[in-house]
């Protein structure tokens, strides 16, 4: 094969603006890049000088698709800074809220962003013309997630009810229980979704990743746990920066997160599933087993199935928590600021989301550090691109380009999130 370059200027069906770049020479893929041209927004810079209580409202704006994740990592990091630990019904409400976001975000990806690749449509809208039932199910399921976020958070995008220490107002038992019928229907759809996703024709591709996710003693991880990996890492969240680093690759302008001394790793649904399968609810575990997913999954294309399994888990968990819920005595615990540094990590739909803050004694933020999942996955995405393209060089260019796009979409990359923290690809000449 002669020398050639494959470029997609603007990737579709990803959140934010990115492109892909592939350089092929003599049957060898020499360079494979996920390019980021989303403009930076400097959240870590303008958080300095703000009051710590403003954090949940501000960091939500990093991402319109997963604002709850930013709010949750933010409040947990700040509570850690101030020496407060939240338990009981407030902790349960936060987990319910996160279930809503997992449902909404994973279903958006499964049905609207990822499925069209497997079925050969440019979008879910075209897909709906031939298969209206499929898309309608997806929309109903997504709505159940958004409804849950609205009841607890006030609105689905940039919820307003989240504060350091808890909530401004706790939802009544009746309001939450009113969601139960829809959530049970959603759970049925989610179980069907797992079987449907597993029936899709999938490229046969596997790679040995180091999977990284939170792990908790008794639950599938969302807001709490130790950071563990498939290569034996097992650390407390405050030790994150001792084990992970962001390095600057000369020909790529993105800051890439790596495990010190080891290299790339993978966060997100595959990592969570592989490291926490034993914590799935019986229903989610059964849905996984019947779909043939009863062992670790190393095929990134199959993430559509694993995301669907996590939707069953999130629906099931939300139903359990709603049924057990009684409002807390007070919607929030009083949190007094402390001159200290604290850390928090939660499981955003796309994977581990790490926050760290240093506060002054009066609660002014002196330093903020935020490491989103997409920047952690970027080296893995590029390695997948390189390997998938290398194995598929005999394809015609359109097919190869589409396969490479799909390889990136496997990760549900959130470029809008990642960009506040990634280098841009615009090099000055």
């Amino acid at each position: 094969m002669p020398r050639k370059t494959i470029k997609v200027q603007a990737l579709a069906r990803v959140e934010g603006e990115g492109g892909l770049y592939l350089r092929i020479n003599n049957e060898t893929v020499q360079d494979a890049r996920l390019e980021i041209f989303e403009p930076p927004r400097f959240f870590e810079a303008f958080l300095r000088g703000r009051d710590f209580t403003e954090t949940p409202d501000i960091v939500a704006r990093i991402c319109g698709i997963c604002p709850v994740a930013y709010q949750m990592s933010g409040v947990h990091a700040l509570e850690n800074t101030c020496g407060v630990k939240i338990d009981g019904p407030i902790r349960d409400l936060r987990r319910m809220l996160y279930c809503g976001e997992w449902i909404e975000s994973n279903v958006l990806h499964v049905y609207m962003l990822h499925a069209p690749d497997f079925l050969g449509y440019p979008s879910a809208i075209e897909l709906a013309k031939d298969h209206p039932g499929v898309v309608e199910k997806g929309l109903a399921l997504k709505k159940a997630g958004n409804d849950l976020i609205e009841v607890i958070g006030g609105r689905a995008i940039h919820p307003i009810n989240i504060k350091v220490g808890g909530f401004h107002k706790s939802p009544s038992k009746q309001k939450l229980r009113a969601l139960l019928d829809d959530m049970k229907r959603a759970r049925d759809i989610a179980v069907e979704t797992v079987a449907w996703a597993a029936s899709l024709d999938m490229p046969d591709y596997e790679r040995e990743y180091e999977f990284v996710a939170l792990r908790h003693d008794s639950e599938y991880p969302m807001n709490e746990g130790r950071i563990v990996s498939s290569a034996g890492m097992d650390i407390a969240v405050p030790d994150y920066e001792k084990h992970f680093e962001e390095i600057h690759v000369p020909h790529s302008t993105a800051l890439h997160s790596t495990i010190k001394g080891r290299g790339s790793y993978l966060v997100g649904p595959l990592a969570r599933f592989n490291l926490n399968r034993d914590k799935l609810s019986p229903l989610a575990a059964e849905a996984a087993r019947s779909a043939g997913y009863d062992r670790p999954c190393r095929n990134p294309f199959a993430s559509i199935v694993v995301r669907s399994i996590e939707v069953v888990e999130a629906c099931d968990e939300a139903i359990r928590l709603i049924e057990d819920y009684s409002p807390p005595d007070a919607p929030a615990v009083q949190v007094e600021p402390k001159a200290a540094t604290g850390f928090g990590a939660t499981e955003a739909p796309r994977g581990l989301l790490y926050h760290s803050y240093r506060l002054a004694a009066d609660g002014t933020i002196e330093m903020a550090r935020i490491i989103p999942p997409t920047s952690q996955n970027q080296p893995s995405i590029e390695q997948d691109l390189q390997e998938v393209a290398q194995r598929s060089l005999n394809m015609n260019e359109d097919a190869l380009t589409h396969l490479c796009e799909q390889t990136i979409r496997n990760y549900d990359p959130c470029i809008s999130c990642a960009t506040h923290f990634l280098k841009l690809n615009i090099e000055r000449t």
Partner: protein
Amino acid sequence: MAQKQTAKKRPKLAVWKFSSCDGCQLSLLDCEDELLAVADAVDIAYFLEATRKQAKGPFDVSLVEGSITTPEDAERIHQVRRSSRFLVTIGACATAGGIQALRNFSDVKEFTSVVYARPDYVSTLATSTPIAHHVPVDFELYGCPINKAQLLEVIGAMLVGRKPDTPAHSVCVECKLAGHACVMVSHGTPCLGPVTHAGCGAICPGFDRGCYGCFGPMESPNTAALAAQWRDLGASSRDLQRVFHTFNAWATPFRRQGELDAAQND
């Protein structure tokens, strides 16, 4: 053939992204009950977050999300304007510069060095500015994020060529309509509702907190009078400066009031 003709007749809708969080364009995909009907009524001709299909302009309606923060985007918005019959900005970033307009009050070079190890690679303007600073805009929809019912109203109105019916009053009116007790009067909680554009449905007072202004300033807001009320409730100059300078910091009335408060010594 018949199908083709229908397809040709449907107005073309485009959705464009500039510097933003994607939340406002997500609002369209969050219209779970209406999305397929919208896709029937209009030809979604360009919407990168949702489809690989990229039709060429001209477009009947362009929805523009995000603010202008790079030299490339300052050029690109002119292409969008040229290819669009109606250009509607959606959300606080596109209408007021968004939270990233906080850079406008600071030294962007210093900001860049805080976030990026190699600031020389980052191509960014010193300011984040609304779309209307660059090209004429036919309609502005407020909110961080926008309200999806208002979005559907705007799309519908643009398609039949009437003015969208979106209220211009303050959040206070919505709060009364929703039957909430005034949080300032009843429990002394500072609230931006009296100066903030309606559209959210007064969500925050319904959750026992004050409005924080994410829909931006209403028409002719009396921010000075409200700031005085806030001081009576114990707010400091720093509190006031910060609350006006957050999600709509570059909208003129909020920018000015925040600057006035910042200049005061408590």
